[in-house]
C-alpha cells in the first residue's frame, strides 16, 4: 500500500471529562476500500467515527484528507468535503418526507424557494439507484426501519461522497436487504468511495471488508488485512486476551430440569408482534443467558416477564403458581425484579446520593408510611457498598458522578435490597469498561451460587456465553432454542443468532 491514504488520522484523542474515550489512535483509509472498525462496546468505535465526521471535536491529534490537514467544527463541515455517515440509530426526521430527508440542507432551490418537484425527482433517482421503490413524497415515519435505514444511505450517497461511514448499517436489515446493501457498497467501491464499515457480525465483516482496524479501551490494537487475519485472532485482538482466560468462574452445573421444578416457567408468551410464543424455564440458582440480535425481542421478553408490558397471550408460572403478573409491583412482590438497559434514563437517579439510590426501591416497596430510619438506610447502603465493592465507598456522593460500572453496581444493590428471587438484567454491562464488566459478570455468578435465578441479556454473545449456564436464543421474537452454554462456542452462537430462518 504505497498509495496516499484518502483520510488519515494520527494521534486522535478525545476526552469525556477526565476519561479518554479515544487515546492516541492512528487510522488510515484508502480510496476504493471497505475498512472495518472492530472492537467491543465502549472500545471507542463510535467516538472515532464521530471525530472523523465532525460530530465530536478532537482533544488532540490531526486529521488529514488528501494529505491536507482539516478540522471539522461540525458535521456540516465534514459533509461539505464529502465525508458522510449513516449512524446506527437512524438519525433521520420521521416527521418529514422521504425526499426531504434525502436532500435536507442541499435542497434544490429556485429563486430561493424550495423546488419541491425537483427535490422529489432527485430523490426518486437516488432511490431507484438503490433499487428502492417508495413514494419520495411520503412521510418517512410511515416506513419500516429497514426502509428508513436505506433512505439514510440514500441521503449519504445523494451528494458527492468520498468517505462513507456505515455504523451498524445491517442491524435492522434482513438477509435480502443486506445483500442489496452489499451490492451498493461494491458499487460505491468501484466509484472510488472509501467506506468505513462497523458491524458486530463477523461474517459480514469478512464478506465485505478489505482491511480491519481493531480498537480496545480507546486504544489502537492494530490494522490488518482481512484475508490475512484469522477469526480467532480477530476476536482475541478485540477482547485483549485469549477466550480461555476469560472463563473467570467455574459454573455450577444445574441439574437437568427434569427432576426439579423451575422457579419461573413461561409458556407461549406473546406481546404484540414483538414476542410470539416464547417458552422460558428458569431454575433456581441458574443464570439464563439471552442472546439475540437487535430487534429480536430481547428487551421485550424481559419486560413481559417482569410485568412491565401486558401479555397478549401465554402464561407465566412462578414457583408453580400461575397468578398473573399485571404490573412491576406485583412482580416485585413475587421476587422478580428488572434492571433496564437504559441505565441513565430508566435506572440511576443521578442527582440523588448513592445511599438514596440504593434504598429507593425498598422504600417504595414499603410505602411512604413505613419509612426506613436514617440509621437503617445508612447501614443498608454501607453493607451493599461493601458487598459489591462500589467505589468510591461514599454513600453521600451523587450517583451521577460515579463511573458507569459503579452506577450499574448501585442499581444492582437497589434491586438486591428487595431480596429478589429472580433478577432480570438487561444489558447490565453496556458502556462500562472491561474491568468493571468482568466484576459485574462475576457478581452475577456469585449471586447465582447463592440460589438467585438470573436472566442475563446482552448484545455481546461472548459475554452471554460466559455468564449463562444455558443460553436462550431469540430470533424475531421467538425463542428458537435453549442450549447449555458448554455446548457452544462464540462462533456457533453467532451462527445460531444470525440464522436467517429458524430450522423447522
Amino acid at each position, binding site marked *: 500500500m504505497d498509495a496516499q491514504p484518502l483520510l488519515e488520522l494520527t494521534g486522535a484523542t478525545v476526552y469525556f471529562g477526565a476519561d479518554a474515550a479515544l487515546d492516541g489512535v492512528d487510522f488510515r483509509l484508502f480510496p476504493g476500500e471497505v475498512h472495518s472498525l472492530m472492537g467491543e462496546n465502549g472500545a471507542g468505535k463510535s467516538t472515532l467515527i464521530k471525530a472523523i465526521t465532525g460530530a465530536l471535536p478532537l482533544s488532540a491529534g490531526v486529521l488529514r484528507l488528501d494529505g491536507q490537514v482539516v478540522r471539522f467544527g461540525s458535521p456540516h463541515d465534514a459533509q461539505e468535503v464529502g465525508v458522510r455517515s449513516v449512524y446506527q440509530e437512524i438519525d433521520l426526521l420521521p416527521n418529514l418526507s422521504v425526499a426531504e430527508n434525502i436532500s435536507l440542507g442541499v435542497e434544490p432551490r429556485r429563486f430561493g424557494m*424550495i423546488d419541491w418537484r425537483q427535490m422529489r425527482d432527485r430523490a426518486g433517482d437516488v432511490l431507484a439507484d438503490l433499487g428502492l421503490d417508495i413514494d419520495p413524497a411520503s412521510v418517512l415515519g*410511515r416506513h419500516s*426501519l429497514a426502509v428508513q435505514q436505506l433512505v439514510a444511505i440514500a441521503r449519504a450517497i445523494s451528494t458527492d461522497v468520498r468517505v462513507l461511514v456505515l455504523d451498524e448499517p445491517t442491524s435492522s436489515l434482513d438477509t435480502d436487504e443486506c445483500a442489496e446493501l452489499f451490492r451498493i457498497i461494491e458499487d460505491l467501491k468501484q466509484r472510488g468511495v472509501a467506506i468505513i464499515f462497523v458491524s458486530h457480525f463477523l461474517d459480514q465483516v469478512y464478506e465485505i471488508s478489505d482491511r480491519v482496524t481493531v480498537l480496545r479501551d480507546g486504544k489502537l490494537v492494530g490494522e490488518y488485512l482481512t484475508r490475512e487475519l484469522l477469526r480467532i485472532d480477530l476476536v482475541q485482538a478485540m477482547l485483549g486476551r485469549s477466550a480461555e482466560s476469560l472463563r473467570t468462574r467455574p459454573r455450577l452445573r444445574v441439574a437437568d430440569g427434569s427432576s426439579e421444578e423451575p422457579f419461573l416457567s413461561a409458556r407461549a408468551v406473546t406481546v404484540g408482534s414483538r414476542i410470539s410464543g416464547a417458552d422460558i424455564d428458569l431454575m433456581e440458582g441458574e443464570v439464563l443467558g439471552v442472546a439475540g440480535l437487535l430487534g429480536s425481542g430481547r428487551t421485550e421478553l424481559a419486560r413481559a416477564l417482569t410485568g412491565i408490558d401486558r401479555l397478549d397471550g401465554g402464561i407465566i408460572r412462578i414457583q408453580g403458581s400461575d397468578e398473573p403478573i399485571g404490573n412491576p409491583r406485583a412482580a416485585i412482590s413475587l421476587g422478580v425484579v428488572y434492571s433496564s438497559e437504559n441505565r441513565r434514563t430508566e435506572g440511576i437517579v443521578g442527582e440523588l446520593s448513592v445511599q438514596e439510590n440504593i434504598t429507593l426501591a425498598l422504600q417504595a416497596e414499603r410505602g411512604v408510611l413505613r419509612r426506613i430510619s436514617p440509621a437503617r438506610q445508612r447501614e443498608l447502603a454501607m453493607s451493599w457498598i461493601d458487598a459489591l465493592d462500589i467505589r468510591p465507598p461514599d454513600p453521600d456522593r451523587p450517583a451521577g458522578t460515579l463511573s458507569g460500572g459503579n452506577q450499574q453496581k448501585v442499581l444492582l444493590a437497589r434491586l438486591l435490597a428487595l431480596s429478589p428471587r429472580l433478577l432480570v438484567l438487561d444489558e447490565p454491562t453496556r458502556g462500562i469498561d472491561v474491568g468493571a464488566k468482568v466484576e459485574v459478570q462475576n457478581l452475577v455468578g456469585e449471586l447465582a451460587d447463592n440460589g438467585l435465578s438470573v436472566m442475563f441479556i446482552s448484545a455481546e454473545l461472548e459475554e452471554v456465553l460466559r455468564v449463562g449456564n444455558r443460553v436462550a436464543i431469540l430470533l424475531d421474537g421467538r425463542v428458537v432454542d435453549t442450549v447449555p452454554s458448554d455446548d457452544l462456542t462464540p462462533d456457533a452462537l453467532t451462527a445460531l443468532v444470525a440464522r436467517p430462518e429458524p430450522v423447522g
Partner: protein
Amino acid sequence: MNASTVTATRETVSRHTRTFLDRHASLMPTFAAVLIFAVLLIGAQIHFGTFLTPLNMSALLLDNAYLVILAVGMTFVIVTGGIDLSVGSVMALTGIWCADLLASGHSAAVVVPLIILAGAAIGLLIGVLVQYFDVQPFIASLAGLFLARGLAFVVSLDSIRVENESVLWLQTTRWRLGEWYITPTGVLALSVALIGAFVMQFTRFGRTVYAVGGNEQSARLMGLDVARTKVAVYVISGVCAGLAGLVLTAYSGAGYPRNGIGTELDVIAAVVIGGTLLTGGTGYVLGSLIGVLVFGTIKTVISFMGAEQAWTRIIIGLMLLMFIVVQRAIVVRAERRR
C-alpha cells in the same frame, strides 16, 4: 366485467387514499379544525338565523387580528418543540410604549419600527437563553413574560389614548366589497399568516424549523444550522408580538399595560386546535389561522347567546383537551407502527 371495473376503481381509490395518507397524515388535525369551524358556523347559522352575515364574518377577522399575528409567531416556536409564554406581555409592552411615544409627539414612522424591534429584542433574549444557556423554553419565556409586563408598568400605570392618525387609520379604514369589509389590521394579519406559511413551506429555514422539531440531534448531524434556527423562531415570535401590540393599540385606540394577560394561553390553544403538535415537528401556520377563527367564533357565539364569556374558556378548554388526546393517540399509533 362490470364488477371487476368496480373493484378496480375501488382499488384505485384506496391506493390514492393510502398515498395521500402516506404523504399528508400530519394534515389530519388541521382538517379536523376546518371541519369544526364549518360545523360551528353552520350550527350557529341554524340556531340564530343571522350569524353568517358579511358584517359578522368581517368582524371575526377584525376582532381577532392580533391573535392571528401572535399565533403565526407561536406556530414557529411550537413546531421547533418550544413554547413562548411571553407574547401576551410583550404585546402589552409594545402597545403601551407605542401609545406613550406617540403621545409625546414622535412620528409613527419612527415608533412602529422601534416597538417591533423591542419585541424582537425580547424574543432574542429568550432564544439565546434557550439555545446557549440551555434554559427550558417554558422558564426562559416565563422570564420574558415577567420582564415585559414589568417594563409595561414602567412605561405607564394607566392607559394612554392614541390620537395619531396613521395608527388609527389602521383600524378605522374599511375597504368594502358589498357588505364585506376589511381593515388594514385585517390585511396585516392575513399577510403575516401568508408570509409565515410561505416561509415554513418553501424556505430552507422553514424546513429546518420542522427538522429541529422532529429530532434536534438528527438535524444537527444532518448539518443543519440548529442553533440559528432555534434563536430565530423566538425572534420571529417577538416580532409578531410587537406587531400585535401595534394592532391591538390601533384596535382599542389606546395602550394599556394590563392588556393581554393570559393571551399567550389563548394563542397556544388556538395553535393546538389548528393542528400543531405541542411536541414539535408537525404544524401549519394556516392551521393556526383556522384555530384562531374557531376561537373567535366560539367567543361570538357565546356573546350571541348572551351567556357569560367564562363559557368561552370552558369550551376552549374542553376542545383543547380533546385535541391533545387525539394528537396523543395519533403519536402513540405512529410509534406502534415502527
